[in-house]
Every structure is written in C-alpha cells, then in structure tokens.
C-alpha cells in the first residue's frame, strides 16, 4: 500500500489550530474590550488572548512545515 500523495495529519492539525487560534483570539479581544463582568475567574490573565495567539502560531508552523509539496 502506498500513502504517497496523502496529506500529513499534521497539516490538518495545523489548519484546525490556526482557525481555532484566530477564533479564540478574536473572542478574547471582544471580551477584553466589553465592559461586562466575566463569568469566569482570573479575567485579568487574558487567557483567551494568549491561548489564541499560541494556537494560531503553532497552527501556522504545522501548516507551513507539513504543507503539500509539489513533486518534481
């Protein structure tokens, strides 16, 4: 059997983490800029922003590293 030509699982992981990172980052920025009381503890840590950035960067690394390569 040949897995030649199959996209790496890490490429799909990267795509998902990139999108998730972006969504969480945007949600975090919206939360930060809204004046509503957070329904969770430690809102001052801005975990959504940090986590969103981290996931986005990690996702981009995986997407670039495991992107489909053109065969010669």
């Amino acid at each position, binding site marked *: 059997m040949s897995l030649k030509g199959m996209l790496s699982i890490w490429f799909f992981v990267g795509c998902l983490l990139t999108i998730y990172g972006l969504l969480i980052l945007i949600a975090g920025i919206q939360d930060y800029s809204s004046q509503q009381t957070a*329904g969770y503890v430690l809102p001052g840590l801005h*975990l959504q922003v940090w986590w969103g950035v981290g996931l986005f960067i990690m996702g981009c690394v995986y997407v670039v590293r495991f992107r489909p390569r053109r065969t010669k």
Partner: protein
Amino acid sequence: MIFHTPALYSLYMAGSSLMALRPVDLAIIALYFVLVLGLGLYLRKFANTGEEFFMAGREMTAWIAGLSFISANLGSLEMMGYAAATYQYGILIGHAYWLAAIPAILFLSLVMLPFYYICKTHSVPGYLQLRYGEGARSVSAVSFAVMTILMSGINMYSMAIIMKVILGWNIHFSIWVSSLTVGIYVMAGGLLSAIFNEVLQFMLIWAGCLVIPIAGLIETGGWSGMVHRISQNFPGQDFTHMWRTMGSAANNPMGVHWTGMVFGWGIAISFGYWTTDFLVVQRVMAAKDLRSAQMGTLIGGFFKMLVPLIVIVPGLLALAVLPFKLVPESMVNVAGAHTYNEALPLMLARYCGPGLLGLGVTALIAGFMSGMAGNVSAFATVWTYDIYKPLIRKTANDAHYLSMGRWCTLLGVIVSIGTAYLVMNFSSIIVYAQALFVFFIVPMFGTVVLGMMWKRTTPAAGFWGLLTGILFSCSLWLWVKFDPSALRYVAFSPHAKDMAENVYRAMWTLIVNVVVTVVVTLFTTPKPEKELAGLVYGLTPVPSMGDLPIFKRPVVWAAALGVAFVILNIIFW
C-alpha cells in the same frame, strides 16, 4: 481503562446545565465535526485493501502510532472519571497513569511487541490462534468483540449524558449525531481514519484542558499553595501523597494496601490491558517497522506520564478552590449540589471564557468520539479476521473481507447505539462492564505472555488457562456480590472499596490463570518448535538495533522513561 465510571444516571437526574455556550464556542464544535467528516471521506481513497482498512497499511510513523496509542486509551470518560476519583481519593489516583501504565508499556515495547510485529498477526486473538490454535482464539475473539461493542455504547451514552448536564443538549441528538459521524468516517477510512482522528483528539485534549492546571496553579499560588488550601478545606486528610498512606488499607481513602496496588493494579490489570487489549495494541501494530512500533509505544508512555497534569491536578484544584464541596452521586437530588463527576466540567467553566470553553467542550466530545471509533474499528478487525474468516467463510478474496469490514463497522455503530439505549434504561450495566473487563483482560495477559516466553506451553494449556481464568474471575465477583463479607478473603479487608476489590480479584485471577496453564502444560503435548518460529522467545530472531545511533535505540528511551517514572514516584511519595 476505567475504574471510576461516573454514575451517569445520577448525572442525568441533575438540574440545569453547567455552562452556556456562545456562538464562537458552537462554531468551534461545528468545525470539529466538519473536519472529521471531511478527513474520513478524504482518507477513503487510501483504504482499498484489507491491510489498508484494518491495519492502516502498517505504514504509521512512530509519532503517529504513539499518539494514537495513547489517545485510544485517553478517553473523556476516563478523564472525567479520574478527575472525579481524585476529588474523592486524592493523588492516589495518579497511580492509574504511572504505576498502572509505565511498567506495562515498557514491557509491551521491549518484550512483547517483537513477537506481535514479527508474526504479522492482525490482532491479539490472531496471535493466540498462531500460538495455541482456534480454541484460544475463539474464546478471546468473542469476549473481546462483546466487550468492545459494550464499551462503545457506554462511551456514547456517557457522552450524551455529560453533554446534557454541562450543556443541556438533548440526549438523543448527542447519541445519533456523534454515532453517525463516527460511523461515516470509520466506514470510509477504517483504522487510518480512526488513527488520524485520535491524533487530532490528542492535540485538542491538551489544547483544551491545559488551561485548567495553568490557571488553577496561578490562582492558588503554585503547588504548595494548592496543598495548603486543600489542608485548610479538608483538615486531617491526606490527598497529596502517593505511597505514604499505603502501609495499611485503613490509612488511605481508597482502602487498599500497597500489595493490592502493586500486584493487582500495577501488574495484573495494567499488564493485561496495555499488552493484550487490542484497541491500544492495534495502533502500534500499524507502525511501519518494529523500531517505529517500539518507539511509538515509548512516545505514548512519555505522554501518558504527563496526563496527570490535565486530569489529576484539576481534581486536586477542585478540592482547593471550589467554594462548595462536591457530593457523592447518591446525594445528587440535594438542591444546588454538584457531584464528584462534575469536577472537570466545573473547573472548565471556572477558568474558560468564550472560545476556550468551546475548545474544552470540543476536546471532551473528541475524546468520546474517538473512543467509540477505536472500539468500532477494533471490533471490525476482530470480527472479520478472528470470527467471520476462520469460522464462517474461510475462502474469500480480500475485497470480500474489506466489504465485510465496512459493513460490520456500520453494524458495530448500530449495535453501539442500541447498547447506549440499553444502558440508559439499565444503568447498572456500566458497573458490570467494568467487571467484564477484568474477567477477560487479565487471563488474556497470562495466556499471551506464557505463550511468548515459554515454548513448552501447550495449545491445550493456552485454552484451559484462559477459560479457567475467565470463569474464576466471574466466580470471585459473584461470590462478593452475593456475600459481601467475602471481601475479607478476596481483598484482605471487609471494608475494601470497589476499586480495591477489582485490583485484588485481578491479582488472584492472574495467579490461577498462570498455575492452571503451567499444570496443564506438564500433562499435554507442546507444538513442534518449527511451528513456533516467530512466536516464542528463543525461536524468534529479533532484528538487532545495535547499528543504530544510540539516541534512536528503543532500549535507551525505555531506560529514560523508567528513570522518569521512578523520580516522579519519589517526588510525590
């Protein structure tokens, strides 16, 4: 491996949902479903033969084999159950991830995998057929198939209940949407789909749940701050030492002596599970070569050792920071009460804002779904190769067996849904499922390891040792069920809890299985050595890895894993 399954019926009776999801959380969940379905349909074109569908072509790298190996074990039911158990019993539950995993994983990687891999068997029952003949294979295949489908249904039901409690979702919606999604992607891509989704699940679980220990330890001021708060909230109780209280069953909340922990949980149950449960072993058998299979197992072992960070620590944090005490399932109807089983969801709700909450919930859903996918793909393999092919239709071409594999995947999903509804009406089935697990998996370990290590073991001994072990385990369980005072013989204490009874029963079962196998061997005829080549120690040429650079040799990484295991046990003594 589950010993603390949430009392799901009691969760079902609980009040309103714990969390409210925002649109961004729902988008994150929906995106996961779209991706897994798309992945399954994409992988369909790479699963066109039996080897590709059932064994992922045996081309997995060490990392993918290792991460799927550990993900097949790391289900959401276990995560929530052990977080709940940590709230009850403290850090003792950490033994599930260290003592009850690492030694067995090392043994699988260094000792047993060469035999599984070299003989090119499709499954653990397949190994038993090669070693002992059809009798042993049939007993193990049928028991494994039943257990796997039951666990798949329990998984689905558990997910539906938990989604109802934490999110207020309709139970039927959860069961059908998740089951059909799993069914589609496993029917399409077989083990390849299941493995890819397990890798995805692994990343999501860490991405979603790591927030809790980070935020929680910041809130408490670190580990010592957390320990201080626990001692203030629960004066006089020790929740943060793993071995200190095991000198006597009366000294620790679990009611178990260290002998039961080491010989029952650490050896009998854990070796039985990690070395013979086909659901996990299948993942490393799909590796591209023996070294990748061994390294994949060890990679899984390193990550397994880290799992307490996202399961045990949240349970301890719940003891430290929650402003109310969680209660047993029997008190779930008390107004405003939250049960032990809600420990992990409560901590998710405590620290996760919009987006992060969706990620955490997606991680839990992914854990449940990949648990079901793993069970269904293992069921399809065992049914097709160990029951259908040898007993029903011996001579058919590969395309026929591939088609059977796809259809019995669908059958497995439908039966799982049926099991989920059965469990909904008879919740005690979950308790029986846990007992079933010990009935079958412990004797299987004794039978397989004696077969691998001792060429004298005869086919008759393999069959009778396995069957006797299963029947003995059932008998011990029934004895305690009908006469609870029997616990003083089985578990050396009339006050032993369920978990302690399980571990001691496993220990006695293994002893009986080994004794019967040895005795029957002495009075029966072994197979000729030429029929045992590739199956037994001493008759199996294992490829040497001495020419590899030192950092690529599995034995070196196994030593590192062993040392890390010892250090962690000393630190948390």
